[in-house]
Each structure stands twice: as structure tokens, then as C-alpha cells.
């Protein structure tokens, strides 16, 4: 874990420098307003990244998050339109339940049938997306039909801070707590580090995997409700391709695709990095055509740096430098101390 601190600090420093550099070009970027925008913009991403991180820790991947988000968002928007009397709590509960169900379905396929996660979620990514079209008939749910409670939620201010920020913080803290203080969380690290060993020491592997996918779905579902509220619209193509952003944030944040490695701090920093870059590009008026290329370059650089820092140090078999001088080298010892007697 100690190595990770170094990595997180480096990433935080890079983000800091980036903010300063952007601020030099466009001072408006250094305002509180911008900070709030970045927080608001990153809030939903944090939710999804937390879920994805749990899954990545188990050597899996959840490609269906964006579709889960959109399907849940659409269903909640429709529920809100159909039953205006629903309150924010029940809507939130509904979103969590729908998301968790979709995630659990992934988990079921993966654990019950022992299928590779990447294939299962690739399939459900299309399937959930298609389901949105089926339930909505391709029609949009427009601003005036979005339930006011849904719309109000992402814009609310709690304790003087943006609600999205608080929700993201809560999700991050809950995930951190799970990973640090609960057996279930520790088991995820163990399973990701060595799946067969986890089986042998008696970790209920299937249940843990199921949990990871269910939580990923649940968080994506809540994210869907917030997304629909924030942009006040729901339609089939909502958040297409967002799963790549989610995975990119994890990767930049040092969560290993190979499983077993990653911290909440790192992942949140990964989100912050993406948030800053996304927020800055329009402000410093980089040609919009450059944005995607820059995103790709950032991902590549960060994984390359990751690999560099994470490379296993090899063991030191030879006595370390200083020590060699103290112990007489064997050849020298042999020539200076023949009296110790030859074998035989």
C-alpha cells in the first residue's frame, strides 16, 4: 500500500500543476465556480468508478455500466412521469433497486455459469441498451416531464455544498470503508490477487463476485437517476460510450486491470484528472477536434507511468553495496585464509 501513496501523491501533484497551467492561460479556471463545476461534473463519474473499481479488483470488468445507467435513468424518468406523487427517497430507492437488479443479472451469469465478465457485460451492454429502446419506444422523456424531485436532486445544495459532491463523497467513503474495514472488501483484494488461493482458503468467491457486480450496477443505477436529473432528459442514446471514460478514470487512478490492486483515493484522483481535463478543454479553447486524441494520449501515458512505478523490484540477492566492502569477498577469503582447511 505504501507504494500507492507515492503514486497518489504524484497524480495529485500532476493534477495540481495541470490546474495551475490552465489557470495561467485562462484565469477564470481558478475560480470557485469552476471547482464546483468540476465537482458537479465528476460526481456521477465517481459513483460509476467506485463500482467499476470493485469489479476490476476481482479481475473482472463491467462494460455494461453506461447501459445500466441509461436504462435505469429511463425507467426512473418514466416512473416519475407516471407517478408524480413519488418522493425523492422512493425514486432513489427505485433507481438503486433497478441498477442492482441489472448488476445482479451480470453477476448471476458470471458466477452461476462461470462466464468471463468481459463477454457477459459486452452482451448485456447491448441488451440493456436495446431494452431502453423497447421500454421507451425510442421516444424521449423531456424536461417538462422529468419529475421535479429528480431534477432538483443534482442541483440541491446541502450544507453549503453541491449535493452531487456529497453523494460522490458518500459513495467514495462507503467504498473505502468496505474495502478497508469489511471482510467482504478484503476478500475482493484477495480474490483479485490470487483467485485459486482465495478458493482454497475458503473465501465465498461466488458470493463476493456477485456482490461486486451488484454494487457496480447499483451505483450505476443511482448515477442514472442523477444523470437524468442533471441534464433533465432521458433517451436511448444517453451516456453511450461512457463505460470507456469510467474505465479510463480507474486506469489513470492506478486501479489495475489485472485485479487485486487499487485504492479509492487513487480512483477518485483519476476521476478528478478527467474532470479537470474535461472542464479545461472548452475553457482554454483547444480545438474540439483534439479532445479525443488528447484523451487517448493521457490514458496511454498514465498506464505507461503506472507500469513503470508498479514494476516489481527484483530481489536483492547480492549483499547490498555498502555491505560488500565489510564482508570479505569469498575469493579473497579463500586466498587469505587457506588455514581453515580444505574439504576432504
Amino acid at each position, binding site marked *: 500500500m505504501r507504494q500507492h501513496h507515492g503514486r497518489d501523491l504524484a497524480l495529485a501533484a500532476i493534477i495540481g500543476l495541470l490546474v495551475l497551467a490552465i489557470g495561467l492561460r485562462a484565469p477564470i479556471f481558478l475560480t470557485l465556480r469552476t471547482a464546483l463545476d468540476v465537482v458537479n461534473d465528476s460526481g456521477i463519474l465517481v459513483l460509476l468508478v467506485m463500482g467499476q473499481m470493485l469489479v476490476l479488483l476481482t479481475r473482472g470488468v463491467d462494460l455494461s455500466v453506461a447501459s445500466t445507467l441509461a436504462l435505469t435513468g429511463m425507467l426512473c424518468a418514466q416512473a416519475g412521469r407516471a407517478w408524480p406523487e413519488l418522493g425523492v427517497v422512493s425514486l432513489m430507492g427505485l433507481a438503486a433497486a433497478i441498477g442492482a437488479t441489472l448488476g445482479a443479472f451480470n453477476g448471476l451469469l458470471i458466477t452461476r455459469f462461470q462466464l468471463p465478465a468481459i463477454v457477459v457485460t459486452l452482451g448485456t451492454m447491448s441488451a440493456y441498451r436495446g431494452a431502453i429502446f423497447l421500454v421507451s419506444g425510442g421516444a424521449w422523456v*423531456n424536461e417538462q416531464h422529468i419529475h421535479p424531485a429528480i431534477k432538483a436532486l443534482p442541483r440541491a445544495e446541502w450544507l453549503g455544498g453541491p449535493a452531487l459532491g456529497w453523494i460522490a463523497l458518500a459513495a467514495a467513503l462507503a467504498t473505502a470503508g468496505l474495502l478497508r474495514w469489511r471482510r467482504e472488501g478484503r476478500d475482493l483484494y484477495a480474490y483479485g490477487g490470487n483467485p485459486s488461493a482465495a478458493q482454497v482458503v475458503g473465501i465465498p468467491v461466488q458470493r463476493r463476485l456477485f456482490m461486486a457486480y451488484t454494487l457496480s450496477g447499483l451505483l450505476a443505477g443511482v448515477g442514472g437517476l442523477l444523470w437524468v436529473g442533471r441534464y433533465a432528459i432521458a433517451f436511448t442514446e444517453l451516456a453511450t460510450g461512457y463505460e470507456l471514460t469510467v474505465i479510463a478514470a480507474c486506469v489513470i487512478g492506478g486501479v489495475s486491470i489485472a485485479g487485486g490492486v487499487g485504492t479509492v483515493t487513487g480512483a477518485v484522483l483519476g476521476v478528478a484528472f478527467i474532470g479537470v481535463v474535461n472542464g479545461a*478543454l472548452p475553457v482554454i479553447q483547444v480545438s474540439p477536434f483534439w479532445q479525443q486524441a488528447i484523451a487517448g494520449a493521457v490514458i496511454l501515458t498514465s498506464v505507461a507511468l503506472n507500469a513503470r512505478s508498479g514494476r516489481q523490484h527484483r530481489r536483492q540477492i547480492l549483499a547490498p553495496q555498502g555491505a560488500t566492502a565489510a564482508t570479505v569477498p569469498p575469493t579473497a577469503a579463500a586466498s587469505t585464509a587457506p588455514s581453515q582447511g580444505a574439504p576432504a
Partner: protein
Amino acid sequence: ADKIALVVKSLGIGFFDAAHQGALEAAKELKDVEIIYTGPAKATAEGQIEVINSLIAQGVKAIIVSANDPDALVPVTKKAMQRGIKVISFDSGIRADGRLMHLAPSNNAMIGSKLVAMAREVAPKGGEIAVLSATAQATNQNTWIAEMKKVLATAGYADLKLVSVVYGDDQTDKSYREAQGLFKSHPNLRAIVAPTTVGVAAAAKAVQDEKKVGQIFVTGLGLPSEMAGHVRNGAVKSFAIWNPIDLGYSAVYAAHQFVKGTAKGNAGETLSLGRVGKVTLDAGKEAAMAEPFTYNESNVDRFAKIF
């Protein structure tokens, strides 16, 4: 009944759904017409080609398409025409050699000047305006932006300054972020012109969330049903759109005349479009319908119920 296919950029877009309504209306009037409403999963030319291939195999009588790429569809629509299928484009056109006619919802110059006029309405004393477009490749968007620039260059608009063109890729979150970016980089911004339905809604939402209602106005092309809320809360004073129902309706009428052989697709030819009236093909075998219709507080709620 003759099968006439309406191929749209991708399914799930309110504008095209409304056009579908109009098409159905026309089919009902024409009696012996059956409408197939279809489109690819993603708004790409490759997807539309697959769709058109299967329409050819079905033996439809006519294909009406809104193209994701004016050139890419030409080979396949040529193939369709060789096999006796009448192909016309509507909304977003195909290159002239790949279709019999193009029915433009409105003419590009009209749209350009309409957009500028609406911007002028919220910035009577001049000021900075910006454009929030869809994807950088969208042909119609780019044509309209070019037309806007032409109008802005004329004498009466010297005080309206187009400071930026940004692209929201027809994604809600990106459009929203681009709008926020505009607020920051152009503190004196007066209006955002978004000639795309996703963009105009997202920008209006951003204005509202950033509490800039009354300071920055959003205008552009949008559907009444999608924009009604934003007009009510003041982020949008007015916006425009041609009538998609009429567009779909007219396209089917036009296609039907090709199927019946009464239209040939020669320059100067006049086609009758049922209740909408008549259009005449210009040299490029294009026909434009009317100027876009403007919606504001006074009429938006009425139309929101329709499309």
C-alpha cells in the same frame, strides 16, 4: 400496397418520430401506401447501408432517407435505383447522383438567417454570440453555420460577434459541458445558438443550472415538446424548427409520385405535396419547403402536445 421506407439517421430521435407521424398521415391519405420506419443503431453511413440493403431485398417501392453521409450512401442508393426503387432524400441530403430528388425542410439560407434573427431578438443592442453544434462532421450543421456567418457579415449585424463554435457531439453531457465552458471563456456572452435538438436542450439546462437566465439566452433548432419547459423557465425566448410532420408527410407524397411515375425528377418539375402545397425542383433537383417556424411562449405549449 406500395412499401415506402423512411430511413432516418438513427432511431430514437423525436424529430424523426414526428416525421414518421406525418408519413403515416400521408399514407392514410394515399391509401395504397405502407410505411416502413427504420434506421441503424448508430448514426453512421455504414449502418444505413446495411439497412438500405435489406430494404432492397424486401423489394420496397421507394426509399426516403436522411443521410448520415451524403457521399457514402451513393453506391448503395444507385444500386437501389438500378433495381427500380425510387430513392429520394429528405432533411439531410444525398449527393445529387445518388437520388431522384432532395426535399430540404427549409432552405439553408433561410435557416441561417432565421438563426441570426433569433439571436438578434435576445441581443437587440448587439453582443457576443456562440454556436453549439452537434458533431463536427454533421453536414447540415456546418452548412447552416456557414450561412449564419454570411448573414453576420452583412451590414446590419456588425455588432453581433460570433466568438466561438463548439461541438457537443449530440451527447447531453458533452453539450452541457461545452455550454459551461462558453460561460467561462466568454463572460460577456449574450446568446448561444444551437442548431441541434440535443444541444439546444442541454445548453438551456446549463443556463438554468448556472443561474444565468436573463443574462444568457439560448436559441436554435428544437422540438416544442423538448423545449417547452425551457421556454417556460426563461432560458429560451424563442426557437425554431420546420414542421417535421409536414416534412415526413411531404416526403411520402413526393416519393409516391415517383413510384406512380408521375414525377421524373427533372429540374424545374413541380410536385404536389397534398395539403402542404407544391414545390419546384431546382437545378440540383432539390426542393425546399418553408422557412422554419418560430416558437415562443405564446405557442409552444400548444405544439408541444403534437411533436
